[in-house]
């Protein structure tokens, strides 16, 4: 699978949580741009985990600030 395929699937998962309609790029940040609180983050992480059948530990989450970093992390976890 290529980056773009993963990016598209992640973008689709972000959609329902993107209440402000922020335009997405690889550098969009979850905390400042999307303004997600911890509950939203948990629901979103659960959705991504289900979509890709993976676990994103809290240790990993702490390192992920942008959409691009999430794509890279999912790519690694599904490799």
């Amino acid at each position, binding site marked *: 699978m290529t980056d773009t395929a993963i990016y598209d699937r992640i973008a689709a998962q972000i959609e329902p949580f993107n209440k402000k309609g922020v335009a997405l790029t690889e550098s969009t940040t979850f905390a400042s741009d999307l303004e997600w609180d911890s509950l939203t983050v948990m*629901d979103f992480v*659960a959705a991504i985990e289900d979509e890709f*059948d993976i*676990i994103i*530990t*809290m*240790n990993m989450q702490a390192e992920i600030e942008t959409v691009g970093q999430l794509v890279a992390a999912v790519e690694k976890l599904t490799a």
Partner: protein
Amino acid sequence: MTDLFSKFDALIGEREALLSTGVRDPFSLVMESVKSPTVAMCNGKETILLGTYNYMGMTFDDDVLEAGKQALDNFGSGTTGSRVLNGTYAGHRECEEALKEFYGMDHAMVFSTGYQANLGIISTMAGKDDYIILDIDSHASIYDGCALGNAQIVAFRHNDVEALEKRLKRLPAEAGKLVVLEGVYSMLGDIAPLKEMVAVSKAAGAMVLVDEAHSMGFIGEHGRGVAEAAGVIDDVDFIIGTFSKSVGTVGGFCVSNHPKFEVLRLVCRPYVFTASLPPSVVATAATSIRKLMHAGNKRAHLWENSKRLHQGLRDLGFSLGTPEAQSGIIAVIMPDMLKGAQMWQALLERGLYVNLARPPATPAGMTLLRCSLCAEHSSEQVTQILGIFEAAGKDVGIL
């Protein structure tokens, strides 16, 4: 130069804004004297205590006080040392014996606080390549235990059995796993579906730790907690508890049936690198624990109080954390921090102390007035409490 305090500016600002509305600081109350488990003097006013976790009202029990006084006389005011060096007195052993008997378990380890018990057991049991799977609404001491160690941390949605099971199934089969649960979640006072959660955890080959801080003494046939009530206590590997609630003093513990448990006394840093509890504290704890084994009447009265307060507050129109009384905690949900602080103050001015809880301690950003009942609250006090809630609620404009 950067002022290291600048990271707290937002919080300082928020506090100043709140206090400038004229409400009293809800986090700096002083109790000038304490008359009983349920009454103290606050700001010169006699106040009913409804936010103390003193569930079983053991703090003024005659036998408990006598044991403490004797220990002070016979063993002195403190141990000045670690449990593994000069800090284990007869009283510490006696306290561990009482816990083993209370829980019907083979091993017990007494820590200086419940907070340290969680720090110690969680950080020591789960190593670098192990996984800790925990409820997202876990107590701060559980999260801090995770932060102190270096295991991989996986959180699941509060009390969601399916979410727990799904995550367990995705983890490497051979990896070490510790599932961390609480019997009663202290913010909303709701209980965990431990029967199902322990079953899916065991099926995945995980060890299970249950923090029963808010259930000891009055949930389960022998007061051993929610795991006992759910019939799964034999499948639980570690129970964490505290002396700071039902037992009525201070201290923490872990009980377990694991044959290798005693090695933890050598490797658990929050157990080793701190001074042990004073002799008077372990003496009061041991006496209290033994009395809690035979506290059927008190237990029944506590439940009666909890159910009555829940029903009464619901009838008045307050919105509560649980649909029915599930524990000794009744959480009243406030619309926001300002209303919460105003209500807290209105209650206090009428002679009622409850616990104000705010994020990040609370789930979903809620502001809560947490009421914890005591077996020593009389029926008249519960009636009084409901009257005060009604008057304060109308004053503040919540009802």
